[in-house]
């Protein structure tokens, strides 16, 4: 049996209600997501933009817009005294007990998340005051040191920091309360490769200290570098998940295969066709079962595709519709 997870999503779904006048069905943003994040893991959630991976993170943190509907459950620290079911918790609970305290968030494009008129040290100190009740500059410096920032760097205003430094300040503020789970939403967008590597390595170090990291990214190279586990998302569904090495080495789902073959050093072959509109997924699944069928070489219902969109476990790995042969 696996060790108890830090975060466990059980058939979590998110829908967006569009205006009635639009004449289309609801947007299927996340469908029946089953994800398990254990201590010491970096779980990379990969997929193209608009596949629902950022919505998944927003749902966990209670940051969905008001036209969203949710179903299923997401447990934080399940089976312990501190267990919280995130999807049914009120804003009060999430703000007081979860966000920043037990789940740290590293946002996309950190520079825009920092207040332009205050130095990095001021902002970190304020986060300390808010989450820990007090602040001493020794611990600010120590935290900054852990993410590779010198005390002198903290004296700068956000616009004086490079993209990589701003991102490290964001990582530092996510770590102030020493959360057991860190969610990083596209933390490397717009950074160049050496900076991407440094930020991803930081996340890897967190996992080494027995925290759990959920890394949401479209950058497969970054995911490959640091992830211990990977979940591939396509058109609102997790289509494959498992230990990173195995999934990257021997992908089962044709979409995972397609993504890997599209990398510059591995052939640069795009997956043919387009992802379906998120408003048409229900119909697509009714008709074919699998949401990837329109771009897939296999026919649903004919081996190797069994046409079942649900994620099925096979040992340490899971895959939808395409069981291993």
């Amino acid at each position, binding site marked *: *049996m696996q060790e*108890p997870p830090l975060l*466990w999503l*059980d*058939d979590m779904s*998110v*829908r*967006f209600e*569009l205006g009635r006048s639009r004449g289309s069905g609801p*947007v299927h*943003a996340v469908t029946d997501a089953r994800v398990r994040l254990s201590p010491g893991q970096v779980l990379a959630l990969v997929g193209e*933009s*608009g596949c*629902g991976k*950022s*919505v998944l993170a927003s*749902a966990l943190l*209670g940051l*969905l*817009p*008001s*036209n*969203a*509907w*949710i*179903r*299923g*459950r997401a*447990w934080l620290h*399940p*089976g*312990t005294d501190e267990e919280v079911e995130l*999807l*049914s*918790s*009120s*804003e*009060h*609970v*999430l703000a007081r007990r979860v966000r920043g305290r037990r789940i740290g968030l590293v946002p996309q494009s950190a520079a825009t998340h920092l207040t332009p008129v205050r130095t990095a040290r001021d902002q970190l100190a304020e986060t300390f005051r808010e989450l820990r009740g007090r602040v001493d500059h020794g611990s600010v410096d120590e935290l900054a040191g852990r993410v590779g920032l010198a005390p002198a760097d903290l004296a700068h205003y956000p616009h004086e920091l490079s993209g990589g430094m701003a991102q490290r300040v964001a990582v530092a503020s996510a770590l102030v309360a020493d959360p057991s789970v860190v969610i990083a939403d596209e933390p490397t967008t717009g950074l160049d490769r050496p900076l991407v590597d440094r930020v991803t390595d930081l996340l890897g170090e967190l996992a080494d200290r027995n925290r759990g990291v959920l890394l949401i990214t479209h950058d497969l190279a970054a995911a490959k570098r640091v992830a211990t586990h990977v979940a591939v998302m396509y058109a609102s569904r997790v289509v494959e998940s498992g230990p990173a090495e195995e999934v990257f080495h021997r992908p089962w789902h044709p979409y995972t295969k397609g993504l890997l073959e599209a990398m510059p050093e591995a052939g640069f072959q795009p997956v043919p066709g387009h992802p379906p509109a*998120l408003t048409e997924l229900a119909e697509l699944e009714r008709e074919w079962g699998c949401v990837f069928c329109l771009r897939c070489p296999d026919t649903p219902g004919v081996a190797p595709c069994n046409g079942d969109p649900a994620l099925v476990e096979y040992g340490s790995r899971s895959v939808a519709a395409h069981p291993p042969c």
Partner: protein
Amino acid sequence: MVELDSHDTTAGEHRSWRSAARVRAGTARGTGGAARARLRLGAAVSVLALLVLAALLVPTLSSAPGTVDYQAVRLSPGPEHPFGTDTSGRDLFVRSLAGLRVSLLVAVVSTAVSALLGTAVGAVSGSLGGWADRLLMRVVDAVNAVPHLLLGIVIVALYQGTVLAVVLSIGLTHWATVARVVRSEVLGLRNRPYVDAAVSSGAGRWWVLRKHLLPAIVPQAALSAVLLVPHAVFHETALSFLGLGLPPHLASIGNILSDGREGVLLGAWWIVAFPAALLVATTLSVSGIAAVWRDRVVPTRRSELAL
């Protein structure tokens, strides 16, 4: 080992859909804010619709709208005359609504003049930039520096006693606000990447203004115009009250209030109270609608869906 499956004892409820907004608020019901706004909007729209309908229909349908009857001067409100009668014995209910019709018409037309002029000046100023922008903005400053009412009085004094003069006196003094709003919107838009893309693919200034800038500013411009309507109603009333506005035989709210001054001194409060109440109700409902609309135009509220 942890018994994860034990959570399934609560099966059922989590399988149903829940509104994210309601879960967040920790309530089973809606958040209330949206519902209150809807209620306010509904109230404002129905009050305004009622007033406009009454202003359009009552004076037309009533048998003798402007009849002077010296047998019935200063009658207090009663079943026959719901608003009472004025110092010349005219029925105030009919006369006030007729006045409202005139006042609203003048306000709407002069607001339209302001909006068109202001949008044109603001759009040209913002999209040309440079010296043209500086020149136009100094003109705007100059118009803003003179008190509107004073400038209005000058214009009316030159062409006294015509409806057109009143319309122009309001229209020509109020476009500056619209111009400022439109210009700042255009300044924010004209360096957007999508404008860059259009410029790079050969589009001219006029094309960019027509296809990208104007469509984007219409909601803001229209909103600032609607916010002007109550203001314009008051201006018309003030000018007429001072005896400079509409010709005295035209029943506008301002003329009625002006006529009613002596009546009030004789204890006939209703001659001023009812027309004034109509005026206030109209302006409040218009600004109520505009306030709700503004909340929708504010961009942060527009993108509900961020995938």
